[in-house]
């Protein structure tokens, strides 16, 4: 299996070169958002408010962590089902997101949108939440704190392991 290193902000040419089935080791910044945070971002855009973060060439990870315990910077932090974020994907692509991480298949229209925007969907292993926690070095809540696990977080990660699921050529990892 081919393993690729990726740092953020993302190099769009490198993203376009990723292929379905490859393992990626991500180092740098990952932004975390799930259903409620996506909804809030949509409402802010609609109201013409400035967003708390610039997502150009960035990564969105669909995840809601468990609380940090003791010395840990974050609790367990595996992926959530990506399909729930399908309706928000075009909005995030328009904001410049180039890589999405979650688990499970996306709708065909999302696969199409990814290709059109030169973006990639990768999956982390669902239920490997402590395994993935090892690669997270810092975790900071940057918006919507009242949403708890559904808030917007910024993670700094080192060699965070994911697998390319849908690439810019329309290839898929799924059966």
């Amino acid at each position, binding site marked *: 299996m081919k393993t690729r290193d990726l740092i953020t902000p993302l190099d769009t040419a490198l993203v376009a070169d990723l292929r379905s089935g490859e393992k990626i080791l991500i180092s740098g910044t990952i932004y975390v958002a799930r259903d409620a945070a996506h909804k809030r971002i949509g409402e802010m855009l609609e109201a013409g408010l400035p967003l708390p973060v610039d997502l150009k060439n960035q990564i969105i990870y669909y995840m809601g962590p468990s609380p940090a*315990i003791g010395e840990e910077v974050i609790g367990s932090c595996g992926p*959530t089902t990506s399909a729930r974020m399908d309706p928000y994907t075009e909005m995030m692509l328009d904001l410049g997101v180039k890589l999405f991480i979650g688990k499970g298949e996306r709708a065909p229209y999302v696969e199409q949108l990814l290709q059109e925007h030169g973006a990639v969907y990768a999956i982390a292993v*669902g*239920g*490997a*939440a402590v395994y993935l926690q090892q690669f997270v070095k810092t975790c900071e809540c940057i918006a919507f704190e009242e*949403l708890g696990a559904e808030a917007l977080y910024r993670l700094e990660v080192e060699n965070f392991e994911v*697998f390319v699921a849908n690439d810019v050529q329309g290839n898929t990892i799924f*059966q």
Partner: protein
Amino acid sequence: MRTISYDTVVNQVARLCQESNMAIEPEIVSVLEAKFEASSGLEHEMLQQIVINNKLAGEKQLPLCQDTGIVVVFLEIGTELHIDFDIEAAVNAGVAEGYTYLRKSVVGHPLERVNTKDNTPAIVHQRLVAGDKLTISLAPKGAGSENMSGMKMLSPSVGVDGVKDYVLEVIKAAKGKACPPMIVGIGIGGNFEKAPMLAKEALLRPLSDEADHPLDKKLEQELLRAINELGIGTMGVGGIATALAVKVNSFPCHIASLPVAVNIQCHVARHLTAVL
């Protein structure tokens, strides 16, 4: 008559919440390890993460999965036991305490969607049984696999083939979204609300347990084979480990009905029982 205190129930429920989220049964761990050994390619790589995760969770005392679920509690209350408090309130107090360092994943109203911030209320099922014991079986259930579950009122004429077709239809729709390797709980019979309860209870059975009724047992074996032949594999990337087990629970039903429910459980199959 034996009595049990409010505090005992609260403390035991809190303990079950914490412990059930940190470790799954050794039998499931072993089967996952065997699947890891037998798998190849991408699936092998992913199963390795799952195998390591099962060890790390215990070492770090972190929940196996960040989705520590909505809590499902089955209470078996002995008729010779004296309880002078609201047992459901005690269970919820235990959940609130037990979830201090677990994720709070419950919203108060399904449309308002405001987090209750203590993971309550739990979903509590109560049953009176003979004796003077209180049995608490607790199963935190994540949404990934729960969301892909299904229920259908079939026509009796479709028979066993119709049941199989429906189960496979649900699994094919779930694919990688339900976090396979999965355990599939199937409820056949009863009525509209009974069939999903049967499916849920089926998931509480030990992994190697076989159904008593020969038809249910045969269905468990045939469906396990058929589901794995779909080749969905770990996380949907293809392979041998779509399902670890299929559990069928059945119940009598109306002459005109054939209810079938399919409750999918991901590989983080958490449940723990305390007998007080």
